[in-house]
Every structure is written in C-alpha cells, then in structure tokens.
C-alpha cells in the first residue's frame, strides 16, 4: 500500500453517489446509462405473496422450515409485511395493509460504508452489490441497514441442512450461485436477468429498452403492482411513474411534500435518512379517504 493509495478519495468508488462534493451527482466523471429502479403500487398489491415465492425460485433461496422461520432466520429477500389499523376494532374494515419489502438498492447505502472488507459495493448501473466470496460475515451491514433487508446464512443450507435433497437440486437456477454458511445476501434486482438483458442489447448493438428485463417478483405479480426498469430511460414505465409522482432520486425531501394539498401517492421509505432508495411506493388509496 502506498501513501497515495491511502490518501485517495475512497468515496469516488461509489460511482453514482448522489451527493458528491459539488452537491450534485458527478455524472460526467462516472457516466452511466442505466439506473435500475422500481415502483410498487400498494393499491394494487393484494398481499398474495406470489412475488416472494417467485423470488425463492429465481434466486435459489433456501426454505428454512417452520422452526427456523419462527426464530427469525428466514431468507425471504422479498417479504410481505402486514400492518393493521391501530383503532382496536376486532375486524378492521380496511383489512390488513401489505407492504412488499425488498432491498431498496440505496444510492448512498448505509450498508456499504460500514463493511470492513468492502464486500458490498455500488455497481455502475445503480445497484448495491454483494460479493459473497469477499464477505466474512461481520454482519455490520445488516446492523446499519434501516430496512433490515439483508439476510445472513445462519446455517449451511445446501449441505448440512440439506435444503435441496435430490432431485430437488435440479430446480436450482444455474444462472447464480448457491450461498454457503456465514455470508450475507440480499435482493439483487435479479442481476442475472439484468446482465443477460444488457448483454443481449449490446450484442444487438442497441440500447436497452423497457420490457427487455423483468424481475422475478414483477413477473409473478398478478396485479401488476411492481414495475421495474431503467430510471434514466424517460420512456420506461418506472421513469414515467417517478416523474408523475414527482419523486426525484437524489432528494431527501421531495418538493411536492412541502407543498400543501398534493394528492400524489408516491413516496420512498426513510427518505429523510438520506440513503436515496431506488424503490418508490405508491400509497394505498383508502376507502375512507375517497
């Protein structure tokens, strides 16, 4: 290690850090044509869990069983959370509210700065990546994640736990690894799909179009509540939704939220903590409000 190496500006390696020294993203220095983002319409979500199941199948997630699940050791990268009204009615007339929660792929991710070995980093297409081979399992990333969407391999699921007994190992997705014990993992926005789509587009000599790639959860959603795509492509559905809802990626407080009387439903969770999440939620329209 040289002195210059030590004195380097380490934050520059986070390519798309939204608040650089100049107060705005340094897109010129680190140009990127792709920023993967998502929006989830909670009004459309029925809480059916199809997205979660699809994620298990797509990403080789181990099914840990009832006992470990009750110990809080489940591996659901996409989890459906349930919230009830607080007004003590036995059968709330609004029913439960559902919130599909997955890694928010923050632009200034709290998990990235704290990893002692640099196992979690930012990719140039705006994802928060996890290098399984580099991870030593200190779990600091999870400790600092405000959403608690990072899942640790508490056991050796493929071998000692034998989660996929023969012939079930045949169902594993060959496009990505099966993780061993002691490493952290989390939603990747189905990077095996996005990279395939990018490679295909490159081979065909064109830019990536909206619809070239779907995440597993999006594909499985029966009500089309999830949209996913390139936020930098103004034609993409996700970019249009963000635009419509006046939600901007690099803001910790949206202008529309300080204006009185806005009826826009778009919001991001924990925006005020300034992680700059890449997932926008569309608030549920409540019958009582209409």
């Amino acid at each position, binding site marked *: 290690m040289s002195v210059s190496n030590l004195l380097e500006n380490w934050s520059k390696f986070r390519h798309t850090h939204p608040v650089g020294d100049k107060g705005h993203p340094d897109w010129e220095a680190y140009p990127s044509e792709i920023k993967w983002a998502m929006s989830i319409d909670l009004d459309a979500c029925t809480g059916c869990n199809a997205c979660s199941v699809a994620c298990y199948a797509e990403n080789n997630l181990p099914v840990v069983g009832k006992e470990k699940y009750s110990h*809080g050791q489940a591996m659901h990268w996409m989890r459906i959370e349930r919230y009830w009204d607080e007004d003590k009615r036995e059968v709330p007339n609004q029913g439960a509210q559902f919130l599909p929660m997955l890694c928010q792929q923050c632009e200034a991710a709290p998990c990235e700065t704290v990893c002692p070995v640099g196992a979690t980093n930012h990719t140039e297409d705006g994802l928060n990546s996890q290098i399984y081979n580099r991870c030593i399992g200190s779990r600091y990333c999870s400790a600092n994640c405000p959403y608690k969407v990072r899942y*640790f391999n508490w056991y050796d699921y493929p071998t000692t736990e034998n989660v996929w007994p023969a012939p079930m190992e045949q169902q594993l997705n060959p496009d990505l690894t099966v993780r061993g014990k002691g490493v952290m993992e989390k939603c990747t926005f189905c990077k095996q799909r996005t990279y395939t789509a990018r490679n295909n587009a490159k081979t065909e000599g064109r830019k990536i179009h909206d619809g070239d790639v779907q995440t597993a959860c999006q594909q499985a959603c029966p009500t089309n509540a999830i949209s996913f795509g390139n936020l930098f492509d103004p034609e993409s559905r996700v970019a249009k939704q963000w635009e419509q809802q006046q939600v901007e990626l690099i803001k910790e407080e949206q202008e529309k939220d300080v204006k009185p009387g806005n009826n826009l439903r778009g919001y991001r969770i924990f925006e005020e903590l300034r992680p700059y999440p890449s997932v926008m939620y569309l608030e549920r329209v409540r019958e009582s409000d209409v």
Partner: protein
Amino acid sequence: MGKDIREDIAWAHINQDVLKSLENPRPLFWVIVFVALMMFGVGVGCEVYQYQMGMGVAGLNNPNVWGLYIATFIFWIGMSHSGTLLSAILHLMHADWRKPIYRFAEAMTTFSLMTAGLFVMVHLGRLWQFYYAVPYPNERWTWPNFQSPLLWDAMAIFTYLSSSVIFLYVGSIPDFAICRDNIHPGWRKNLYTLLALGWEGTDRQWRNFRVTYLTVACFLIPLAVSVHSIVASDFAMSQQPGWHVTSFPPYFVAGALYSGCAAIITLFIILRYVFKFEEYMTMPILKKTVRLTFAIAMVWTYLNLIEFASVWYSHDEVAKAVLIDKATGRFAPFWWAMNFCGSVVPFTMMVKRWQTSIPIMFAVSLLLNLGMWLERWMIVTPTFSHGYYPWTMDTHYWPSLVQWGIVFGSFGWFTLLFMVFCKIVPSVSMYEVKEMVYHRSLATKKAELGLEGGH
C-alpha cells in the same frame, strides 16, 4: 490512613516473598486453575459446535444480527483499559502507591485484550476468512474498506495488544533478572535467562530502561483512549437509533476505566490471598484503588445520564422510542439492573469502614462489573429489537445456550491465562516495590532530621 507499605522490609525479603509466589501458592490457586480450565472447555465445546453448524445455533436472527458476542467483546476491551491507567498514567503522575499492583493490572490488560480479540473471531460468520479485514498486500490488489469503523477497530486492537505486550515485557525485564539469579536451575531458569536479555543492572542499562519505559508509557496513553473511542465509533458512526450518539466515545472510555478498576479490585483480593501478598497489597492501597474507582464511577454515571438526556431532549422520536423501550420493554429488568449496579452500588465505596473490608469490596467489585457487562448488552441489543423499521419490533430474541456458553467460557479463558501468568512472571514488581520502600524510608528519615522537601 495507614502506610501503603512497611518501610523496613529488607530488599532480600521482598525478593523472597515475591519469588515464593512463583513456587508455592495456596491450594486455592490450583482450584481456580482447574475451574477456569473447565469453564474454558465449555466455551471451546460451544465454539466447535457453532463453527460446524453455522452462526444460527447462537440464536441470532434477522434483525438481531449482533448479540452477546459483541457486548462481551466491548466488555473485555473495556476491562483492558485500567491496566494502562494504573501503569502508564499513574506512572507519569508519580503516584507510587500503584507500584505493588500495576504488574498484574498490566497483565489483565493484555489478557482481556486477547479475550476480546477472540470474540471478534467467534462473532464472524466466516472465521476462516478473518484475514480479509487485514490490509495485507496481495496479488488481487484488494484492500479492506478503510471507511468501516470495524476495520479501524481491528487495527486499533492489534496495535494496542502489541504495544501493551511490549510495555508489560519491558517493565518486567529487571524482575526477570532477579528470577534468573535466584531460582533453582531448570527450564524456568533458562526461560528467565532468555527473557532477562542479559540484564545486569548497570547504570547505563537502568538509564536506557527508564527512557524506554517512559516512551512506551507515553505512547500507550493516547492509544488506550483511542481504542475505546474507536470501539464506540462502531456504534456512534452507524445510523441506528440508540447508537447514533455523539457522546459515545468519552462514555465508552469512562465505562472502560470503570469496569477495569472494578476488575482490579477483584483480582487484587484474589491475588492477595492466593499468593500471600498481604505485605505488599496492603489495605491502604486497596483503599486508594477503591477511591479511584468511585471517582470513575461518578464520571460514568454523569456520562450515562448525559446520554439519556441528550436522547430525550433531541426530540428524535425514534431514538427516544428506543430509550423508552429500554426502560419499559422486554429488557427493562436488565436495563434497571445496569443502572443500579453501575450508579447506586458504587456509593457503598463511600463508607470508610467498607473501603477496606475485603468481603464487601469483593462483592461490590463483582456487582460493578456485572453492571458494566449489562451496560454493553443494553447498548447492543435493544437497538436491534426496536430499530427504525417497525417490522423489527415483532421479532423476539433471546441468546441461545451456545452464546451464553461461549461468554461463560471466555471468563475461564481469561482466568486461566491470568493465573498461569502470575505463576510464571512475578505479579508484584520487585524492583519498583524496592524503589517505593527506599523513597518512603528516605522521606521518613528526612522528616526525622527535620529537613524540608522529603519526596
């Protein structure tokens, strides 16, 4: 107050008394070693099981990814700080009452740091890859992440451990020479000959020795303060409610000195009995240590209250919710026990009669350390079960027996190392006690002759 040490102890007598501790301690010594070995065995058994099965057997889950391992890690790191306080800071301040007790305090520093280091390892999901966190040159040109407080932590602990080993060793060289000259031939004599580095006690050697010792002492003091500040940064630099507190570094340093001083009292009492050090580890010295501990206890109490106050008046709803949860939630009994042991129990040290009562001070020092261990646990755990995200509040977490077993075993490991050390290395510094006796007798003589400025 009585005299710290009798002024008429002959130098040869000091040698004899201390060297006897290397030869024939009381039978209780062997009982302690045996019990410690058993405890350590339990810890090793649990760790082997955890290594085989994965971290899940520790009962950790999402979001409770850190548990007793991290809490106990901070506890051991904290305990290491008082050795430096006694040997380095009080050395610079010319407080000569520290002389009979600083050697074992310094050993305590080294061994509790080693125990703390083990907890980092035990905590890692992939223990066999721990060296990824060390900045070593490699062909892949990959470095650890210098932004991570955990990395600073690893480096700070390594530096502190190596420095305090050097300090302990340098300070013992004249004593190794005494052992070499007095002990019967055998493997021990060979060992002491090697360790004494040809010490003959010439003027030049003493001069160099003094300079070296002072230099290492001066180096060690800021290092000790920085180490626990960095451990505090693991929490303070994070974004979590209950951790993101600016006052954590001084709070942690105070807590560290506190638990370390309490541990010194415990070990003082044990060593005094086991190795028959009644003439050296005297009641007036215990009294001074107790008073020092009381002062630090009050500093800690103040900083503890400051932490609550700054959270309360910050009007940060989430941080406030964590504080309320600590006081009223599932962990409330432990949180209140921590406050009781840490802030109320030390007031027993104000009673003059109790300051020199061995059974009372033994019990009090153990309670203080229980309180400090609970403090660390109450910093780590409630933030996980009551964090930002409401989903975390539904999770139930209790450490499994494996986790408790390893924590239990660590006390055995520490005691084992410490006891074996005291059997091999003189745990009372002979040359410094001689100095102390000499200076004291000189002062008395001067006073008798009516001269000024006895020192």
